[in-house]
């Protein structure tokens, strides 16, 4: 078993873990983290594919850089949206359920 195969398998496992988290968990922050795990798993598959057979594939690496920017933009938007949603909810029910 080579390094590339190991990371291919690990990437798939992370992707699946993220998907499971997204479907099972209810808290928005946990779900956003789960989606990021899916993203990391996908990127790991891509980077492992890029590194197979010794020489690096610059195209796949460039695709992952693009994917990373897209992922971070979407994550930031999702987090701000989750915060705004929470703020709106706690304003409607001012019993302070957001306080720990």
């Amino acid at each position: 078993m080579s390094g590339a195969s190991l990371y291919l398998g690990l990437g798939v496992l992370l992707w699946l873990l993220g998907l499971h988290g997204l479907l099972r968990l209810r808290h928005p922050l946990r779900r956003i983290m789960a989606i990021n795990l899916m993203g990391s798993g996908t990127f790991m598959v891509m980077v492992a594919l890029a590194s197979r057979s010794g020489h690096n594939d610059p195209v796949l690496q460039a695709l992952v850089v693009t994917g990373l920017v897209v992922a971070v933009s979407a994550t930031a938007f999702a987090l701000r949206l989750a915060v705004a949603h929470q703020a709106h909810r706690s304003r409607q029910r001012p019993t302070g359920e957001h306080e720990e």
Partner: protein
Amino acid sequence: MPATELLLDITLGVLLLILAGAALHGTRLYTGIISFIAFGLLLALVWARLGAPDLALAEAAIGAGLTGVLLLSALGRHADEPAQPGSAVRTLATLLLGVLVLILLLRAVLPLAQGPQPLPALVNSQLEASGVSHPVTAVLLNFRAWDTLLELLVLLLAVLGVRQLQPAGRPRPGVWPLLQAWSRILAPLSVIIGGYLLWRGSHAPGGAFQAGALLAAGVVMLRLAGLLPLLRWENGLLRLLVLVGVALFLTVAAAGAWFGAGWLNYPAHWSGALIVLIEVAATLSIAASLSLLVVGERQELGR
């Protein structure tokens, strides 16, 4: 491959899985977020192991840095979730299904360790003509420049999306004096390293995105330390910074289509210079957009 390297890979993999599991299922949300940030740092290490230093730089700045700040600041708003009562039957069923899907996926993925790779050779043969000598930068800004242009639009859209949200109305916490002192040193450093990464990008790992992310980290730090004035969307200069990357890119693309050889076709002797110009503009846009996304409040984004 030597056994020690394999051992290192396996250790890294197990650690990543443990951190990922803790991020999702750690008992407290705070623990989960810290695990997630550690996961990002470790991932940067994996990218470096896999021969992708461009990605390692990007992941360290983004995955661990900016996403971490965002998650921690979101945590202040959210209650810890109530524990979910899990039934044993359901867990078992999920586990079985998960293993089944995993086996199917592995059967599809593992044969790919040997597949045809026509593109790396092609990239190398055309590298001369691209105007830069680092292959990843050549792909990002020349061969697949259209992807990069659209990616800048995605970033812009995230900023616009955040702008449409109602204000969170959160009072800014008091500034920690140590942070203030440190950020006076670290922020100029982030500008210098960012500039260096950008310059290096044309011939070695680095480039617009990594530099922009690092600059944004500097801006975020200064803002959190209260050393930077509010950045207002009403400020034309800030809007120009956010938009300049896409605008310049589009201008070059359209100028190529109408006066030159074609859409996004750089003139032969100018491609190196044009790529540097576009990269500088893109770095500024990425830095401005990411800072707005992370520390932008109503006053900064407001209408």
